[in-house]
């Protein structure tokens, strides 16, 4: 669990210096993914870098699992926090295995253990270990390098992961793939992740909670569904875009809006699964011109129905933190 308390960074300048980060406070629960979102220069990266103390806060505190990080040696602190940056920063003088082994080596793991860990992580990130362990970073594609960057951050199994626009340098097609892989991995790893992005779509896809910044201030901190459904002010509404209702569809599942099957449910209505999101539901409504869908489980058994009315009702009443957009605990 990470708690920020009135975290502030003021860079001194000739005219007094404005705050780059101004009294930012929020809390990220263990195992949650929090996306720091905002236009460039809004202080999101500075906030992230104050958590592993690459930037020293002017005032305010960061607590990780209740422990005040300013009381910990910064070098020791950083070894317990995974760090991924947009430029990836794989060391060109080291192989993939050695890059992944950087933090384990700092923690004095023995060689066989480092090697095993590297193999395990590559396999988890869909890279064939035998093929990649002894490659050098310049022999990797952008997407592969970014996966190795994530593997390196996870090497010593840190409970906290900081990611600074980690997929920003990857082309859009591969970005989707890596995002999906990361989500799948995060489902089982349950790291506490702070993720900087300037892309609202990425944020809605990845986040349990979104912290939206403007000019060093935290404008809103909410689950994606709430942020999209109830933007706190005009800035947030403008940033998330006029199509924010469409964006919400991604994070609401059929299971959230379905009602029990009744005798009247049309046997020939198109079928969806409880895990499908509302984008699929709305697509079917429009394409097939229907008002009701059948919801069937993996075994083909009818478990419920989804109506246009139910979807409209769900969109009209945004979740308030406990809804489906909220963190899964």
């Amino acid at each position, binding site marked *: 669990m990470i708690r920020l308390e009135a975290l502030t960074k003021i860079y001194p300048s000739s005219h007094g210096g404005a705050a780059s980060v101004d009294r930012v406070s929020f809390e990220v629960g263990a195992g949650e993914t929090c996306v720091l979102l905002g236009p460039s220069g809004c202080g999101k990266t500075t906030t992230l870098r104050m958590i592993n103390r690459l930037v020293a806060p002017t005032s305010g505190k960061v607590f990780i699992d209740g422990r005040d990080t300013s009381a910990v040696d910064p070098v020791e602190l950083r070894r*317990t926090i995974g*760090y991924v940056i947009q430029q990836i920063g794989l060391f060109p003088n080291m*192989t993939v295995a050695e890059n992944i082994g*950087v933090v384990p080596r700092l923690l004095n793991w023995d060689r066989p253990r480092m090697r095993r860990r590297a193999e395990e992580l590559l396999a988890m990130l869909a890279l064939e270990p035998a093929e990649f362990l002894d490659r050098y*970073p310049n022999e990797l594609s952008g997407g592969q390098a970014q996966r190795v960057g994530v593997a390196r951050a996870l090497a010593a199994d840190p409970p906290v992961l900081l990611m600074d626009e980690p997929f920003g340098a990857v082309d859009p097609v591969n970005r989707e793939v890596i995002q999906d892989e990361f989500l799948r991995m995060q489902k089982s790893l349950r790291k506490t992740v702070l993720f900087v992005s300037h892309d609202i779509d990425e944020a809605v896809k990845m986040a349990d909670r979104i912290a939206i910044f403007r000019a060093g201030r935290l404008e809103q901190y909410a689950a994606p569904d709430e942020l999209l459904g109830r933007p706190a002010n005009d800035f947030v509404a403008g940033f998330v875009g006029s199509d924010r209702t469409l964006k919400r569809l991604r994070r609401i599942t059929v299971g959230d809006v379905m009602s029990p099957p009744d005798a009247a449910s049309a046997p020939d209505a198109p079928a969806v699964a409880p895990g499908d999101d509302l984008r699929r539901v709305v697509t079917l409504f429009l394409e097939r011109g229907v008002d009701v869908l059948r919801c069937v489980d993996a075994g083909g058994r009818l478990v419920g129905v989804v109506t246009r009315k139910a979807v409209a009702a769900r969109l009209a009443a945004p979740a308030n933190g406990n809804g489906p957009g909220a963190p899964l605990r």
Partner: protein
Amino acid sequence: METLTFILHNLPAIGERTVEHVSIVSVAVGFAILTGVPLGIAITQSQRTADTVLYLGSIVMTIPSIALFGVLIPLLSKIGQGIGYLPAVIAAMLYAQLPIVRNTYTAIRNVDPALRSAAIGMGMSTSQRLFRVEIPIALPVIIAGVRIAVVINIGVTAIAAYIGAGGLGTFISRGISQTDVRQLITGALALALLAIAADYALLWLQRRMTPKGAAARAG
């Protein structure tokens, strides 16, 4: 033909002079590496210090070696070492500083800031970052500086024959004073071969020390 006969008759002497020459150059470059590399790394911390140090280094390079030997004679006479081995080593070391300091400085400065930030962010201490990341990446460029220093020093040491330091320059200085073309050519030839051999040996080392990942990217 005469020169060839001279060379064949004087092989042991040529060998001895070569050993003297190599000893002066290697001791001078050795000390220059020990001082120049840390200096080059240290000055990356401050632009102003770096400018000053590199400027001083450039000034040293403009002093003709024969003049530098002249300056060193009265200074080192005080400890009874005005001529011979010591002033030769000191002068050679001074000339070796600039290429080594400058190349080290440039190489460390040019390490991608993203790598530095990744290294710090992962919890490397300053010395770990230096020895595991920055120096290995900078090494080929540092060795290139050493190559330049060695070649310069082979030339400087040739002049040192005039202050009694020995080395292959002895053949040239004697060849001139005795108007003996055989000795002149022998000295010049041996120096040229030594410089080429040293250059190639260090080029080989430079390639070997280039991180595999960096080499292919450069190529």
